[in-house]
């Protein structure tokens, strides 16, 4: 008896109960995952549901006698494209949930009606078409699926194949152009950085957090010899993490020097620049 996934190319065993069972299980899983994909609010959950759909479809490709496409589906789609999606989701913010507020009145109702209409039209078209049973052999042009595909791609479809190459390199260049950010200010040299550090009056590296303190956690300021705490020892990214809370301290390089009318410089803390950063 042939294996289920390898049953289709040989032309035998295609209507066995095992194949039908697996098809129905995969169909229900994929439709359920697709429905969950448009219903869940978080983008990460959508990506996971899409991965489930893609894996189900990969198995169906194998059942339909396309083992090469099945592996390309797993490697390229589930492996590369979906990881790219997850990467961008992590970059944009994992907590970016959809709002459930309907911005256009009656849009969901209209979308549902349009979907029902499209479904009816497509199902009627498919039902009226005379789709025959599966042909006996799938790999008509070669000894197996991969050889036949390679022969087709490099003979009949060689021009679309080369156009695909042009498309890929255009997409790569386009992604680089779109993701590129122009530098508006000149890049600070080592001399500029040293001058800035000298001007800040804070030459030594920052003290480590938690030195002589009760805990050595990263948000614990170090203790100074007189018993006070050194706010310099805490990373400034920890301070604006609590939303709505004023910044607890200001580092020396975040102060601007304002020359008053009397001529003596006065240091003013700039809290607005920190707010703009966060």
């Amino acid at each position: 008896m042939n294996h289920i996934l390898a049953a289709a190319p040989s032309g035998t065993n295609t209507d066995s109960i095992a194949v039908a069972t697996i098809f129905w299980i995969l169909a229900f899983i994929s439709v359920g995952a697709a429905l969950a994909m448009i219903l869940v609010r978080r983008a990460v959950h959508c990506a996971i549901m899409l991965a489930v759909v893609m894996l189900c479809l990969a198995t169906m490709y194998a059942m339909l006698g396309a083992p090469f496409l099945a592996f390309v589906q797993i490697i390229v789609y589930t492996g590369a494209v979906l990881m790219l999606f997850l990467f961008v989701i992590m970059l944009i913010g994992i907590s970016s949930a959809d709002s459930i507020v309907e911005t256009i009145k009656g849009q969901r109702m209209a979308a549902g009606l349009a979907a029902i209409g499209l479904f009816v039209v497509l199902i009627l078209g498919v039902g009226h078409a005379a789709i025959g049973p599966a042909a006996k052999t799938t790999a008509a042009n070669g000894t197996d699926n991969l050889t036949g595909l390679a022969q087709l791609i490099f003979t009949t479809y060689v021009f679309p194949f080369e156009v695909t190459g042009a498309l890929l390199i255009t997409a790569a260049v386009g992604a680089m152009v779109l993701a590129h950010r122009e530098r508006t200010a000149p890049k600070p040299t080592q001399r500029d950085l040293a001058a800035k550090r000298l001007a800040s009056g804070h030459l030594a590296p920052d003290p480590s957090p938690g030195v002589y303190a009760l805990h050595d956690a990263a948000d614990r300021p170090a203790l100074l010899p007189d018993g006070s705490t050194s706010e310099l020892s805490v990373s400034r990214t920890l301070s604006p993490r609590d939303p709505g809370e004023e910044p607890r301290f200001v580092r020396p390089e975040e102060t601007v020097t304002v020359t008053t009318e009397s001529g003596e410089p006065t240091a003013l803390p700039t809290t607005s620049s920190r707010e703009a950063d966060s």
Partner: protein
Amino acid sequence: MSPIHYVALSVILFVIGGVGVLVRRNAIVIFMCIELMLNACNLAFVAFARVHGNLDGQVIAFFVMVVAAAEVVVGLAILMAIFRARRSASVDDANLLKY
């Protein structure tokens, strides 16, 4: 298993993807729904290749996969550029051309 079942399943998945494109507001989720529609088309292509007993449909499905990969790369780069400018991935916030 008759190929008509696979085609019907691809129709269902395509419609679900279309609904997702229409109702979701997050641009990443809209992209994912477009991917779902492309996958449904691929399933139909492979099923019809099975019906006809040749490999042309599989080759077309392969090309669809390549085009989808390129589309995702450029689309996500556009999304990143919009997110950098608007601080939001929602399609409602990208309304600079509206007024």
